[in-house]
């Protein structure tokens, strides 16, 4: 799942300063699940925005709406009839959603209300952690199902570095050493020999370094 967190109110209030009527737009996918931009967060930010503006003496109309998914044109199309009545759309979706809106409605300012964070999983209620860097060439099969790219601070493929202490990363005791985890799991799996294999330098083209990525399914795209 894509995770995100609400931007600081100060930044948000600044970004909407010029507007007097906005559409606050949530998304019922990832950002709902990670409590960043679903109906509930839309309602909260809506109230906070109105309050913040009233407090400044500049009341602002905030229309609240949550789409099923902001990263699909069909859902975004729903806005076409009503969007003109707003000065701006404030999207609580991840960057994908914001851009889909911007693309579909070129003349409409679109403001991001959240910072898109990472692809992660929920560890427990209210806790999400990064799990995948989307590098495009998955090595989890060799690393006991724990990703060195996303979870080692140095992306070391033949780790751990010398900084690994008591299972924690040198950058912080709150960060697990990915390689400790990998090693423990490999032992669990009886696959320690996988470690001795020297991992070749990674082909980063499949990651962001190869430029913006697209997936085109010949069997689908006409």
């Amino acid at each position, binding site marked *: 799942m894509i995770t995100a967190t609400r931007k600081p109110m100060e930044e948000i209030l600044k970004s909407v300063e010029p507007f007097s009527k906005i559409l606050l737009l949530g998304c019922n996918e990832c950002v709902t699940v990670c409590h960043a931009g679903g109906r*509930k967060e839309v309602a909260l930010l809506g*109230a906070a925005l109105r309050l913040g503006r009233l407090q400044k003496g500049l009341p602002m109309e905030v229309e609240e709406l949550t789409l099923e998914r902001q990263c699909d044109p069909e859902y975004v199309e729903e806005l076409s009839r009503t969007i003109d009545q707003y000065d701006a759309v404030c999207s609580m979706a991840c960057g994908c959603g914001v851009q889909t809106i911007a693309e579909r409605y070129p003349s409409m300012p679109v403001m991001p209300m959240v910072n898109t964070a990472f692809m992660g999983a929920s560890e427990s209620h209210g806790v999400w952690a990064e799990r995948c860097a989307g590098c495009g060439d998955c090595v989890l099969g060799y690393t006991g199902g724990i990703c060195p790219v996303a979870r080692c601070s140095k992306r070391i493929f033949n780790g751990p570095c010398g900084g690994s202490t008591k299972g924690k990363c040198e950058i912080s005791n709150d960060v697990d050493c990915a390689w400790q985890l990998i090693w423990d799991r490999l032992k669990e799996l009886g696959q320690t020999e996988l470690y001795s294999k020297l991992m070749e330098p990674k082909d980063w083209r499949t990651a962001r370094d190869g430029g913006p990525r697209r997936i085109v399914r010949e069997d689908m795209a006409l």
Partner: protein
Amino acid sequence: MSDFEPVVVVFACDYCAYTAADVAGRMNLEYPAGIRIVRVPCTGKVDSLYVLRALEKGADGVLVAGCLDGDCHFKNGNLRAAARVKALKRLLDEINIGSGRVEMVQMSAGQGAVFAETARNFVATVQELGPNPIKHAASQAA
């Protein structure tokens, strides 16, 4: 601003604070009339949105009144409420409404006196803070 009589919305848990408020009444304990109580089954039900909406509609302060630690009828609803209030306080500072306008308080069902005292003290605090800033703005806008 001495003649300012704050309006305070209290979201009170049926199992403790709401009962305590009834007891306070039956004990004829007085507290300012600005205290207005909304009944909830558990403070765990108090959505941050309710608090914000109350402030948006002109309340000068909001109390979330739940059970004592460990006494929540539903195990930990009061702790969740307390956590939300903590987050709300940060938000309210961010938008210059002031974190002091919302508090989590805890008491048991029998503590009518505690309810009355808590109510009086909070109203006094809010009096210090002055009226909800949006009132002024609203009156100007009007």
